[in-house]
């Protein structure tokens, strides 16, 4: 087993902040402490070479779990073993074999060109010259950022920067790679090339990859297996295709009308979830989308019309209801 997690739990304390001058004055002398349960006893195993996705809405506990697996945080309860080490003991041998990439946070130093940052990493990980040069060449070629090595980090585009971060993260050939929202904020092209790269890297090096995302496409493209986490608990562990069934390809149509239309009329086209004044939102099954859209535009006074996938929270909310059915 590459990663073994048993009843991992994390609670932390925070202070209540209330609005108003009176409370601000009170706060000068005494503050009210509260406890947040970020992760509630999750358990799972990951075999070497697997790519596993960690899916869940914001605040679900994905990042917290990842931080515990990389040794950044100490769990409140439970245990975990990554490559045979307990992550939060932070042994040097452990650190040399893992890597964590967190979406918006930088590995690389802002005021340096990428190659200087990478050279620092070489010294930190004590890589020998040959191995370093070879790995570097391989990675920048695969990610197509060879030209950008000498450029100052702040001058690179977000996509290029993210690719450099990946180079920095993989320069020491880690056996376990933890990625937290790796494609967040990137343009579509960059997202695609990073997904492609990760797939290839995993195939060639058999590195275990655990990645969190709230983009379905990331998980779809890369992961054979998904762990769905919600409110700190693991609600699903299995292949992605089964979740898609639960999702049933629902599409959401938001309409802006220029004349009022009655609710019962709208309900003929699909499931009416929102109807306020001249705005309405309908949910229709994906395969019905084209037919219903044409009808809507023909028959209703539509000014504006947007189609989107319902956010992952809906799918997961669905999942909650359907957990019993799937099992």
């Amino acid at each position, binding site marked *: 087993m590459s990663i073994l997690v048993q009843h991992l739990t994390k609670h932390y304390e925070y202070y209540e902040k209330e609005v108003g*001058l009176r409370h*601000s*004055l009170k*706060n*000068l002398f005494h503050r009210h402490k509260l406890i947040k349960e970020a992760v509630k006893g999750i358990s799972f195993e990951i075999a070497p070479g697997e790519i596993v996705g960690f899916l869940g809405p914001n605040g679900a506990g994905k990042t917290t779990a990842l931080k515990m697996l990389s040794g950044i945080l100490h769990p409140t309860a439970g245990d975990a073993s990554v490559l045979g080490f307990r992550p939060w003991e932070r042994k040097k041998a452990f650190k040399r074999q893992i890597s964590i990439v967190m979406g918006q946070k930088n590995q690389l130093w802002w005021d340096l060109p990428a190659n200087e940052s990478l050279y620092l990493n070489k010294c930190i990980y004590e890589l020998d010259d040959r191995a370093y040069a070879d790995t570097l060449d391989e990675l920048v070629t695969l990610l197509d950022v060879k030209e950008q090595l000498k450029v100052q980090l702040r001058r690179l585009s977000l996509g290029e920067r993210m690719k450099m971060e990946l180079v920095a993260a993989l320069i020491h050939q880690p056996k376990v790679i933890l990625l937290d929202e790796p494609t967040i904020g990137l343009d579509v092209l960059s997202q695609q090339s990073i997904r492609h790269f990760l797939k290839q890297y995993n195939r060639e090096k058999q590195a275990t990859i655990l990645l969190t995302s709230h983009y379905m496409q990331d998980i779809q493209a890369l992961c054979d297996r998904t762990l769905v986490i919600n409110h700190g608990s693991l609600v699903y562990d299995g292949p992605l295709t089964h979740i898609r069934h639960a999702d049933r390809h629902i599409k959401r149509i938001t309409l802006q009308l220029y004349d009022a239309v009655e609710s019962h009329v709208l309900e003929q086209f699909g499931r009416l979830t929102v109807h306020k004044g001249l705005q309405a939102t309908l949910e229709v099954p994906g395969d019905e989308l084209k037919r219903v859209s044409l009808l809507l535009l023909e028959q209703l006074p539509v000014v504006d019309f947007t189609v989107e996938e319902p956010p992952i929270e809906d799918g997961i909310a669905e999942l909650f209801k359907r957990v019993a059915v799937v099992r």
Partner: protein
Amino acid sequence: MNILGKYGYAFLLGFKRTMEYRLSFFLSILSCLFPMVIQYYLWTSMYAHSTDLMIFGYSYRQMILYVLLASLLTLVVSAGFEWEIASDIKEGGLNAVLVRPLHYFLYRISSFLGGKLLQVLLSLAVIAALLMVYPSIAGQMWQLRDIAWFAAALLNGVVMNMLIFYCLSMLAFWISEVWGVFAGFGVVSSLFSGGVFPIEVFGVVVNRLLDYLPFKYIVYFPVNVLTFRVTGTAVLEGIAIQLGWMALLALLAQVIWRIGTKKYVSIGG
């Protein structure tokens, strides 16, 4: 908005912010202590080893009173909003304010003063306490009229310092490394305004120079009004000079603002 009006509200927000950062507040009060301690020991040992009873024209008790009062008044007149104004200018936050029906300086100052209120009240309370301990130094007791003159001199000093730093902050229109100007200027200005030593210590030449600059009227003059080293018509003269400087600086600020915003808008903010 209510009776406070928009500037009153900015003032209140500034005050509330002080409440939030409580550690910050307590420590800023505490950090006034160190300069006082340093000065106290410095002059105590100087006078202990001096053959003269007077150094630079001050007796021991006069000197101690001066440095303590100067330390507190430096806190009262201190600015700090220059950093926010500079960052507004450099990072385009000014755009948001220019389009609103708000006078920029008044807005910034209201917010700033709100944050300072507690600090100023505490400083004045300490000054009052100090004076009760040292009543005999001045050789006379304080009448209401004396307090009034001091208040006027102090208020003028505050406004002068604020205007100077306001002008400085607008250098951000032209200099990107304006932080250096604030830091460097602050160091020298606090010395020349008499905030650390009475300016007599700098010798004749420097004093002659300082007569033509506004600095000594920010801390040195108000302190000496309070300790009766400046009396009678000299007080009126000093206050008149302060008013003169205030007018000049206000005019300078207007001019710089006009030129600066013109440049700012022409660049596109």
